[in-house]
């Protein structure tokens, strides 16, 4: 009697495990099927988005690997400043504490909290360019569009986050990257070296990301003397001052504020207008 109960129990156990295993296989299959779709439809081709990660594109790295990535990408970025992917990797490998700080700031702000919940993305596909072009001059959306045209940039050139080991922090990092261009508009800085360094100083003061700090320190090394003087006398102190006193720029739902006047937005964020007009045409001389 006891033996037969024992047998039935064992069979039940095995049956249960079998069912569980089959169920898991199903999930793997479904995810692999979704994977196949993403592999076929993604433009980059060889991005196996669901292969073992917390979010699409996530790659697990150990602490040693992160350290090596930080050193390697730092050297590579210094060697060839046009390797934006290396700057991005450096940011991800070194930014853990700063990202936690930023995320907490966002959570404590009601608008920032909404952003963390809704996860908006700034891409050409999500922006309505014709509507933004019809907005009046001086509005945030119109100025942003003007910035994109004058400097010949697109919001789609931001690399995806890969090495951040938390899904929410990865979104914060992605948001930081996508807000960078909007910061250029808010601060009135073009994408030449001087403008980029000014924005980096602002970001370093605002976010505390080590990558921004590094960029802020090493960027000026490539500037000419006249621009260095401009940076250290007026632009630099302005950027630092505003970085500290401004509201957290990641907590603003920019996508809902295109019609707002840019002066209004600056006042709301506690940012002074730039002391010097830096023109985009200066790119040729830098």
């Amino acid at each position, binding site marked *: 009697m006891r033996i037969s109960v024992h047998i039935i129990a064992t069979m039940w156990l095995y049956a249960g495990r079998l069912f569980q295993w*089959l169920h898991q296989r199903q999930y793997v299959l479904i995810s692999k099927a979704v994977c196949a779709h993403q592999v076929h439809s993604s433009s980059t081709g060889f991005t196996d988005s669901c292969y073992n990660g917390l979010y699409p594109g996530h790659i697990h790295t150990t602490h040693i690997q992160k350290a090596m990535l930080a050193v*390697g990408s730092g050297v590579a970025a210094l060697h060839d400043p046009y390797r934006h992917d290396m700057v991005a990797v450096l940011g991800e490998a070194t930014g853990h504490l700063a990202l936690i700080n930023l995320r907490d700031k966002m959570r404590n702000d009601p608008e920032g909290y909404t952003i963390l919940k809704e996860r908006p993305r700034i891409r050409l596909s999500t922006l309505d360019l014709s509507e933004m072009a019809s907005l009046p001059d001086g509005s945030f959306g119109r100025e942003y569009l003007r910035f994109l045209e004058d400097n010949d940039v697109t919001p789609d050139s931001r690399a995806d986050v890969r090495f951040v080991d938390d899904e929410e922090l990865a979104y914060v990092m992605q948001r930081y990257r996508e807000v960078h261009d909007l910061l250029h508009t808010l601060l009135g800085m073009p994408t030449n070296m001087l403008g980029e360094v000014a924005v980096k100083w602002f970001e370093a003061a605002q976010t505390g990301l080590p990558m921004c700090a590094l960029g802020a320190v090493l960027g000026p090394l490539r500037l000419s003397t006249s621009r260095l003087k401009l940076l250290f006398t007026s632009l630099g102190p302005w950027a630092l001052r505003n970085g500290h006193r401004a509201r957290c720029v990641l907590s603003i739902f920019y996508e809902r504020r295109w019609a707002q006047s840019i002066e209004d937005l600056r006042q709301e964020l506690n940012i002074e207008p730039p002391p010097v007009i830096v023109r985009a045409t200066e790119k040729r001389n830098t």
Partner: protein
Amino acid sequence: MAASMRLLLRRVIRLSHRYNNVTAAGVSARSGCCWAPSTCRCFSDVAGDRSTHFGFETVPETEKAKRVYKVFENVAQKYDTMNDVMSLGIHRLWKDMLLHAMHPQPGARLLDVAGGTGDISFRFLEYARSQQERQKRRTARSMQTPSSQDISNNYFTEDEDTPQESRAVVCDINKEMLNVGRKRADSMGISAGLSWVVGNAEELPFDDDQFDIYTIAFGIRNVTHIDQALQEALRVLKPGGRFMCLEFSKVTNPVLARIYDAYSFQMIPVLGEVIAGDWKSYQYLVESIRKFPDQEEFKYMIEDAGFYCVKYNNLTGGVVALHSGFKL
């Protein structure tokens, strides 16, 4: 009584494992076909949908070749730099050792499969050239006091020297890799006796009995059906021809094995990301090494294909193995 029941159950579970692997491949192929324009896969259920490994991942066999192609297309530009960095330059020694073992005679015809950027072929032509020069010097030394008969003989034998020229054919499935190889050849000034052919190791675009030597260096682990590649190698070699394969293999020493594993999985993808901007391709490369059969098993595979006198040498403690076999 309970034990035999458990044994029976285990067998049932194992059977269901196998069944699910087959249906799994079928389901994934069916869902894949909904997105892809080709519809023929929808109708072939179990027959054409066997799966194979792509690194540590499992993919349908039909997909592996495409994904391997993509990997090498991405890494082609930085391939040689990465080889030097990853192996700390030791890959040059491995390839030199292959050439020394080969010891090609002048006039030999080489087929370098998965030859990509041409490392083996360049070394082959250099070796053949230096052999020829050594021979010329030797004949010159022995002919320092020639008789008039010898001088007149020389005029006739000079014409026979040209057919002795060695020729190398670099065959690779990936056009990007061949392009990089051709550019290298041009910059090194090597062009005589070298040709570049696009081809699949499983289905070579050559007639039977064409080549004296067949080499495949660090390429055979990327082939979907290794046995087919070995069959093709047997086919295109002349009787007496030699098959030589350099490939990453199992490290015999346990201490070295642990260091090698740590280096492969920790360092190499990082190097791939920093230098080539491609973590995933180099992750695939180190995983594919682990999936390749070890020295003995590969030796059996070569013997199964019909080669004789199959031997292997371990280089760098088993990190790389050099397998060799003859077609008789």
